């Protein structure tokens, strides 16, 4: 009797094949759902010929044009992705989530918990409108 009960608890070959077949469907589903369509580069046009105080704060980056140099730093904190605040008085970026700080010229982390430097975005400076094009 016990042997019969034990046999009944085991799957039949057909049931096992059906189960494995269902599991096999998981792979294409995961591949489909997890595929990341590459993000299209977005050029951000800035029509200001001169930046007030040498910088411009945008939603995703801060553009600098001073001392003969032009650069744009991402406002995304390299710790956990929060949006950074630029402090003009100290010339640093600070994260409001965990107070990481970054150098505004080099993008390097000067205070943790962030370790990696900020991302630079390519900047094109032009003679006519748009005067700056930042590729994000």
């Amino acid at each position, binding site marked *: 009797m016990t042997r019969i009960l034990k046999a009944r608890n085991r799957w039949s070959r057909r049931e096992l094949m059906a189960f494995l077949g269902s599991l096999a469907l998981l792979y294409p589903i995961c591949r489909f759902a997890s595929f*990341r369509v590459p993000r299209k580069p977005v050029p951000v046009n800035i029509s200001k010929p001169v930046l007030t105080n040498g910088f411009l*704060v945008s939603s995703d980056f801060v553009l600098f044009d001073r001392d003969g140099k032009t650069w744009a730093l991402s406002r995304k904190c390299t710790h956990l*992705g929060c949006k950074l605040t630029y402090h003009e008085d100290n010339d640093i970026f600070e994260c409001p989530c965990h107070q990481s700080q970054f150098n505004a010229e080099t993008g390097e982390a000067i205070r943790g918990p962030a370790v990696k430097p900020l991302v630079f975005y390519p900047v094109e400076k032009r003679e006519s409108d748009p005067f700056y094009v930042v590729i994000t």
Partner: protein
Amino acid sequence: MTLAPFSWKEIKWGAWALISLYVSLLSGIVVGLQYDYMTPFYSTTAIDLLVPYGRFFRSLHFYSSQFFLLFSCVHLAAVYWKSEKLNYGEWIQLTATLPIILFLLFTGYILRGDNTGASAGLIAESIIHEIPFLGEILNDLLFSVSDNGLRKVYVHHVITFDFLLLLCAWNHLRIYRVNVGDYRLLLAAMLIFSIFISAPLEPEQLGITYIAGPWFFLGLQELLRYFHPLIAGVAVPGVFLIALFAARPGKDRMNVFLLGMFLWLLIYAVLSCIALLR
């Protein structure tokens, strides 16, 4: 007429939690009629400022959801010792509703699209990315806010986590029925509360130096300051969950797990206070 003396022990916290869930679901449908996940912050602000009774319905949805979580936690504590008759599978099913409820609330925070919500979404994404092997797949399934905006978060908030919640609580809800009419006072209290207290919303501000996350993740936010995201964001909450699953009443060594959970909650409360006072 004399009033019957009020006793905390007689409150059916599970029923209160269920009523709160009903209110949350219904008010969520109302809010969803105006909400647009493509422009989350604009949509949320418009609901508050432009849509007639929008501020009330958003507040009702927000606070009923918070009450649902709180009453569920109290319910678990209140009926813990009576849960001895549950088998292990039933215990896991029911306790699994707690992290699901947390995810429901968390995705709701993200959908606000304000400073707190946007940062919460990015932090969750970063933490999940840290999980070895599965991180990228899990992020693409659950959040993916950087690449796909709030589309997936919206789907999970409206359907996925509700479905999972129903799946886990179905047998329990079939056994313990609730007559909504018996809780008119609770319903009235929630409605009146929502009339006077608005749901929070934090617009982006120039020069902001500190963002406090959702209240139930403040301790986690503080931990992330000192530890690697995998430790603070995955391992530490995971340890609590494992202890909760293992602490089935009547099981051997459940007292050890209970003590562990109590200490965990105590430390978490202290960390939350520190995060709040920053």
